[in-house]
């Protein structure tokens, strides 16, 4: 079930109403039932997968807790089992095709093999939650005894498909304590759902039509288009994924349940390190805790810690998609983090530079540079192949096409109407980001009078009704 579908618009109110109506003891059952209905709405057969993995990890949890003082073998078995399932569904074709490519290079004969596997929705997210659970239990965390609550943790419908990746120690108590209905939380949740939907429908989907036009035929695009589409894609991803997250968090809040934050005005970050603390926060933390720290983190030699960083970010890239250009994107993130660390080392003992870096001027410059670097990395993310990405980057940085003969596509009246509006939408989003950065610690929304909040919500609904695209697109992160 898509969040931006009529199905979900009917599903959510029914679930929320039932949630607050049924006896408290039945709420976990209701959440589980709703979550499985939500999942089965896509392909009922894959319900077997999520139920199977839940049972497997539930059992592993007990076994690991039982034997954790004696052996690590069960943890390894649990991690491998989860990774094998994820690997099969997500990476089988990628591994086989990459292997064949190597054989091709070596001129060795091989047959053809393809796994016609449909990637189950949300598998990466609930697998990461299972891994988190078994690792934490091994580290001494409490085992979840109630199978229903454990199943709700993994299958919880608002976060089932694209996160945020939850921590069981924060989530399980919330469905255990049975909070009373809080109108303030409900209102916040309601507004967030609408706000997230508007981000997706009004911004992400409209920006997508221009981005798709440019990335669909980059040869026909001018240098200015390539830059504009790159920025547009950065904001499309932000609006799409943070829109999804807003709906997930808002849906949860309407039931009095909080899930971890995932975005915090990321493009106002003054370093790539800060950006990953403010963008897809739950995934960054997961990779930090379970990959980077497991590899040794930064408590080792400088070279080794850099290696750890590159491995972690490349794996994060691979997680985003089974393709080398996604690995390259992750590698780019790792490279940016290394450059940032080296930069800190460089200026630390230079007093004048150090003083300048503490000024507001530098912050503005740093935000600009960080956003540029991050947007450029998205060329690898969005392009179909590394060679296409490199070719596009080459054109973006070459001065040859600065004055193209052809008019840029964003000045085209033949394409989607949104194309000539893209620069204005981007400018508005930049301004919105700047305003949000100033407002984020001031509880601005909470202090806004309710009639104004209601007016804003009504405006969003009106705009969405008017400008909802005839064909809704999926959320970008659903494929991960």
């Amino acid at each position: 079930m898509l969040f931006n579908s009529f199905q979900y618009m009917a599903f959510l109110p029914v679930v929320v109403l039932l949630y607050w109506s049924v006896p408290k003891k039945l709420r976990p059952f209701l959440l589980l039932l709703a979550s499985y209905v939500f999942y089965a709405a896509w392909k009922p057969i894959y319900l077997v997968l999520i139920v199977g993995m839940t049972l497997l990890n539930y059992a592993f949890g007990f076994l690991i807790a039982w034997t954790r003082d004696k052996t690590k073998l069960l943890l390894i078995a649990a991690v491998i089992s989860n990774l094998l399932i994820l690997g099969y569904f997500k990476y089988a074709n990628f591994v086989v095709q990459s292997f064949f490519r190597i054989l091709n290079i070596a001129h060795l004969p091989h047959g053809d093999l393809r796994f016609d596997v449909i990637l189950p929705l949300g598998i990466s997210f609930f697998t990461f939650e299972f891994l988190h659970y078994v690792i934490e239990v091994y580290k001494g965390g409490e085992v979840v005894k109630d199978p229903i609550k454990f199943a709700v943790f993994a299958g919880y419908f608002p976060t089932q498909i694209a996160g945020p990746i939850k921590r069981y120690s924060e989530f399980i108590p919330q469905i255990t304590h049975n909070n009373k209905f809080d109108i303030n939380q409900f209102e916040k949740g309601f507004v967030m759902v609408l706000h997230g939907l508007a981000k997706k429908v009004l911004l992400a989907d409209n920006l997508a039509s221009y981005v798709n036009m440019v990335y669909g035929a980059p040869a026909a695009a001018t240098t200015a288009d390539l830059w504009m589409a790159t920025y547009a894609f950065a904001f499309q991803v932000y609006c799409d994924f943070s829109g999804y997250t807003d709906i997930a968090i808002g849906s949860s809040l309407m039931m009095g349940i909080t899930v971890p934050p995932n975005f915090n005005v990321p493009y106002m970050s003054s370093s790539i390190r800060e950006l990953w603390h403010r963008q897809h926060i739950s995934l960054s933390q997961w990779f930090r805790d379970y990959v980077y720290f497991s590899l040794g983190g930064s408590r080792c030699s400088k070279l080794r810690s850099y290696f750890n960083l590159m491995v972690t970010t490349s794996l994060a890239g691979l997680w985003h998609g089974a393709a080398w250009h996604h690995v390259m994107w992750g590698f780019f993130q790792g490279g940016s983090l290394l450059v940032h660390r080296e930069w800190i080392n460089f200026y630390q003992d230079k007093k004048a530079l150090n003083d300048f870096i503490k000024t507001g001027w530098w912050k503005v410059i740093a935000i600009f540079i960080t956003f540029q670097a991050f947007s450029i990395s998205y060329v690898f993310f969005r392009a179909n192949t590394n060679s296409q990405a490199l070719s596009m980057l080459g054109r973006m940085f070459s001065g040859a096409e600065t004055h193209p003969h052809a008019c840029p596509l964003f000045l085209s009246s033949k394409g989607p109407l949104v194309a000539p509006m893209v620069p204005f939408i981007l400018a508005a989003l930049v301004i919105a980001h700047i305003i949000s950065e100033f407002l984020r610690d001031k509880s601005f929304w909470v202090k806004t009078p309710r009639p104004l909040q209601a007016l804003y919500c009504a405006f969003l609904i009106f705009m969405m009704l008017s400008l909802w695209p005839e064909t809704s697109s999926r959320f970008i992160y659903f494929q991960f």
Partner: protein
Amino acid sequence: MLSYGDAYLGQGEVTSDNKSEQKFGLIRLLTSVPVLMLLILLTLEIWLRQGHNHVDALNIRSADLWGCVDRLALVKKVRPQAVLIGSSLIMSLDQTEEGKNYLTGYDPVYLRSLLDKATGKKISCITLASGAQMVSESYFLAQAASATSHPPGVIIYGAALRDFVQDQLAGEWKTDTFNSVAPYVPLTAVPDIYSEGGLIRFFGSHFCYLYRDRDDFKNLFAFWAKEALEHLPLDQPFMRLDADCYWKPIKSGYLMEEWVARRQETVLENLRIKNPARLRDYFKRFQSMFYRLQNKETSELSDHYFKALQRLCKRKNIMLVVVNMPLSPDTATIVPPVPMQIFRDYLKAGGDNGGYYFIDLWADPRLSDADYKDGVHFKMSGLTKFTEIFVQLLQKRYPAVLKRMADQSAAEQPGASK
């Protein structure tokens, strides 16, 4: 303590202490954001339901592009004995002697006068035809017109092959009148709705004017955006219709969003006077587009609604008269003969099976090229000829239809027993 949310909404914090267990009263509930929002939307909804077509007043294409809502209200008020449905071919019967109102009228004056003569009674007749009306639209309009205690005794359906095969308008919701008419169509029509997309949109438009009128605002926004964006150095201006009815990238002329019925009438009428050959060419090209691609699904959908229309008329005891509408001999040459023959046979078979009263006026030799404004719509001379032929055929073949009108008219007269 858990933080949540993106900063656009202001970073908030939710505590797990007893703050979340605060009690709230009825007043708080009634002044909560969702309730207030619903009140605002309800106010907007009521405002939209007042019947004023604000977007149309700005000369922008609205959900009610063809003024069906007013005409349906007139049907309810006047309780006519006959209602005309179909495309602009039959709509042109509304034109005045000066040639006006052939796309905006509702009163087929000459037909009415002939029916008066033929029946000896005062027959009222209202046109619910609209431009490029598809069969699904005709069905929904018939549903809306007959959703009354006094449905019209006769529905005259001016059918054309195009209405059954135009792929671009195959989905019910893609047609011009679907949204505007949906609120007036009774829910008993729901089982007859063919596609899932149509069903969802029907419910949306039936219950919610905010949804029904969504394209009004979309058109308005698109119009404003295009007008504003023309100030940019675009590669070429947006497509507009020039005075000679050519769609081309120019800065003057009408955008598609502005192409409302009364403008169509004015522009086409001016062109007819200035350059009749160009007008004929325009409609010939326009017509030829419809027959290039023919999707089987479109025909199935049309057949579904045509049969639903027949069932509706039977259920409501309405006499359905189907007229295969003619085009000018010149324009008729572009219509592929085999599909046309199949279509004529299909209509005839329906008539023979008692589904309706069928009159085939396709390629009637009494109508010449000179009887058409543009090869498609009648001039006054064509209107006169067509109407006379039609009424004569009714008298000759289907006197029961005229009798039904006469009887209903008599029953409607003041003092008539009810």
